[in-house]
């Protein structure tokens, strides 16, 4: 008998079908990975198991935990099961904790709810659970509030809450998506250890194939509310019988074809950053003392030649976006200067030089918030015309719009649509079109593909590569996803705590990292092939034994 059996689960919300005939099985002590694109129904499957479905949901099929059918459980019985038999960890560690309760209280609550222990005992158990997830007493006393903790630490608290009572089943819904790679690696290791120690079943939901290859014994691939393929990890990846699995696999390891760029040393660099410092003012601590400062970018210098693609990597909060904003002259800088094509663009003394501004454009991470929802596409993408002395009008304007749209693979007729009529990938294309329309020499891409599904991400990377070949535009490509950076850039810079710690041609850095931090970063990055081979070897060893 399996620990968890889901049989022909069908779910609809207000009549809208969400899940169709989902069947999944999981043994104790094993990890089931569920992968699939955004909206494919991964979370809803998990919520069905928890019986925490949104209003208007109707479901049919069978869900059994240890042979006990959840179909027959009343809400009261479900309350007894949640937290006790099934623990759950959610994606967003920043909001998953109650901000006004101490972490001790929140962990102990699980225990108090389900067992008759005294508060003191519950606190003791909570303490132990926190110790287990790597939050030792001396640094993390029980009376800490969540806002004193980092994202990874909060995620540990959430995990401690879920495992406090040693549940039979743990469901983790994208538990690391919001964390940077090094923290992700720690959390995944922790989960793996807990599964082994408690002989717990783990359902791990993710969209990252590499993570799942590393973690899961069995994998289910979901698409549009259906499980399209399911099986043991290694054979599933090796065989890839379903075309969707195959597409997914290919997309996640996709490397766009690129020409190598010749650098013309005679021309001035597209952008030259010299000793830039950016301080954020901290809130005043008292009326009379001067406000404190936080140095987010610390003496950074960099150069990008015409046609060159440069990557900037580093963990969350290291100052990547701040540097971008400085290069775009969106914020004033407190030291150093920035030149575009040899002309002074901004410096610590003065504001930006408007004339140069048209040399640089940007594409942001979130395709949803990058556009004013009230404007049509033609108006959206022509916004940078504002920077031109004689903005084109009439037929010429139309022509430029059409060519920008076709450049990014959209149709001319899309110009009259509103932004909500497009998918995320299409929106990101429009964002690129907007950046291209005044033919800048540098485009800054701040996490431009991070929010996209793998298959769409692959398309956008192709597009970017193609554009850079055709138009000789330079990119400053910022991402925390090393594999993407590796795929698209010529040169890479590694940033840590506001400083650039390593720099060099991309392949060199990836193959032969010099700085300890770079090494750590690379080690923590899950890589699909490597994970698969490791698993294969392990399984092979196990079967031989």
């Amino acid at each position, binding site marked *: 008998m399996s620990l968890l059996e889901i049989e022909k689960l069908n779910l609809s919300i207000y009549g809208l079908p969400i899940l169709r005939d989902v069947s999944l099985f999981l043994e104790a002590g094993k990890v089931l990975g569920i992968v699939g694109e955004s909206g494919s129904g991964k979370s809803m499957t998990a919520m069905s198991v928890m019986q925490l479905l949104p*209003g208007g949901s109707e479901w049919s099929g069978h869900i059994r935990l240890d042979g006990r059918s959840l179909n027959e459980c009343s809400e009261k019985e479900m309350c007894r099961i949640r937290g006790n038999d099934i623990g759950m960890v959610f994606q967003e560690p920043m909001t998953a904790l109650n901000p006004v309760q101490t972490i001790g209280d929140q962990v102990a609550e699980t225990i108090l709810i389900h067992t008759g222990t005294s508060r003191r005992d519950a606190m003791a158990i909570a303490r132990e659970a926190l110790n287990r997830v790597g939050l030792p007493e001396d640094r993390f006393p029980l009376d800490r509030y969540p806002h004193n903790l980092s994202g990874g630490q909060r995620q540990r608290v959430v995990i401690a809450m879920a495992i406090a009572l040693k549940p039979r089943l743990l469901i983790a819904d994208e538990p690391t998506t919001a964390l940077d790679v090094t923290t992700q690696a720690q959390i995944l290791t922790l989960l793996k250890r807990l599964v082994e120690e408690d002989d717990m079943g783990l359902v791990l939901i993710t969209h990252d194939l590499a993570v799942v290859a590393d973690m899961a014994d069995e994998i289910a691939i979901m698409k549009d509310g259906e499980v399209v393929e399911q099986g043991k990890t290694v054979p599933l990846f090796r065989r890839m019988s379903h075309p969707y699995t195959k597409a997914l696999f290919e997309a996640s390891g996709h490397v766009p074809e690129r020409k190598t760029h010749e650098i013309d040393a005679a021309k001035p660099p597209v952008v030259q950053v010299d000793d830039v410092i950016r301080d954020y*003012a901290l809130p005043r601590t008292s009326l009379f003392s001067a406000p404190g400062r936080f140095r987010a970018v610390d003496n950074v210098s960099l150069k990008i030649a015409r046609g060159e693609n440069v990557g900037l990597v580093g963990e969350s909060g290291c100052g990547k976006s701040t540097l971008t904003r400085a290069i*775009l002259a*969106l914020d004033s800088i407190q030291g150093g200067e920035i030149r575009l094509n040899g002309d002074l663009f901004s410096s610590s003394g003065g504001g930006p030089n*408007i004339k140069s*501004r*048209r040399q*640089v*454009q*940007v594409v*942001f*991470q*979130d395709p949803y*918030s*990058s*556009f*004013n*929802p*009230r404007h049509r596409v033609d108006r959206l993408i022509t*916004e*940078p*015309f*504002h*920077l031109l002395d004689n903005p084109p009008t009439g037929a010429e304007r139309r022509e430029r719009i059409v060519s920008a749209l076709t450049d990014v693979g959209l149709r001319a007729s899309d110009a009259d649509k*509103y932004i*909500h009529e497009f998918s995320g990938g299409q929106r990101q294309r429009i*964002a690129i079109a*907007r950046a291209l329309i005044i033919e800048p020499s540098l485009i800054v891409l701040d996490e431009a593909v991070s929010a996209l599904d793998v298959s769409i991400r692959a398309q956008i990377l192709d597009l970017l590569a193609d554009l850079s070949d055709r138009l000789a535009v330079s990119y400053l490509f910022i991402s925390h996803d090393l594999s993407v950076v590796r795929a698209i850039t010529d040169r890479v810079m590694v940033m840590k705590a506001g400083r650039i710690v390593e720099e060099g041609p991309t392949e060199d850095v990836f193959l032969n990292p010099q700085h300890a931090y770079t090494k750590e970063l690379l080690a923590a990055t899950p890589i699909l092939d490597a994970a698969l081979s490791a698993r294969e070897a392990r399984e092979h060893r196990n079967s031989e034994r």
Partner: protein
Amino acid sequence: MSDMSLNSRPASGLLGSALRSPSFMIGFLLTLLFVLAAVISFFWVPYDVTVLNIPNKLKAPSLEHWFGTDIFGRDIFSMIMVGARVSIAVALVAVGIGIVAGVPLGLLAAARHGSLLDEVIMRGNDLVFAFPALLIAIMITAVFGPGAINAIIAIGIFNIPVFARLARGAALSLWTRDYVLAARVAGKGQARISAEHILPNILNLLIVQGTIQFSLGILAEAGLAFVGLGTQPPLPSWGRMLAEHQTLYALAPQTVIFPGLAIVLTVLGLNLMGDGLRDIFDPRLRRAR
């Protein structure tokens, strides 16, 4: 709450959800009723409200006088129609003052977030809030004398910080949106961005708040008129009708019930409409339904 309009989408589909929102529909119909009464009163009323007919005073509702007659024998129904005009005009202009003065202030404060100017604007707002509204209204009328204009000013002043705060709060969260950054990258200045990107996207929020302030304005006008500081005779005003007949609660209830109901229903209508609009504009709630 401040997030509601920020995800707003263009008009398409709003009409449909409006028709499906009962609170909006009830509110809209009630509001429409009073706006119509006010508009029609310009062309036609059953009886002239400036003509007194003292022998005919305090008549109970009848076929001739649907709502009865007041202390001077005037037709209460006609007075309520004309009074609607006054209430709506006073509240509308007062809200107008609040929007015209408050929204730019709020947008400016948001654009210069963290600057001294922002601080000054926000502290100024707090200061206005610190003064008890009715008292200031009384002081203003003590300085300038009672009358519709001064009532408008008094009510309007208190609308300014309401809108300034609302606009600032909403604008601040929009200023962090990527599309605003994109506009800055396109070289647009603060004023231009405020006008092109911020204002249109907080419009929904302003409309909802405007409806609510409008209803508060009607209540405030009634309150001022009740203490004798609002609109002056011979123009009828609902609040003054209540004040002038307050001693006739028992003797001639029609004189206080109908103007009172007029206030209640109008305010109710506007509030329901505001609530409905909020639901319609707020995609989060829409999804939940």
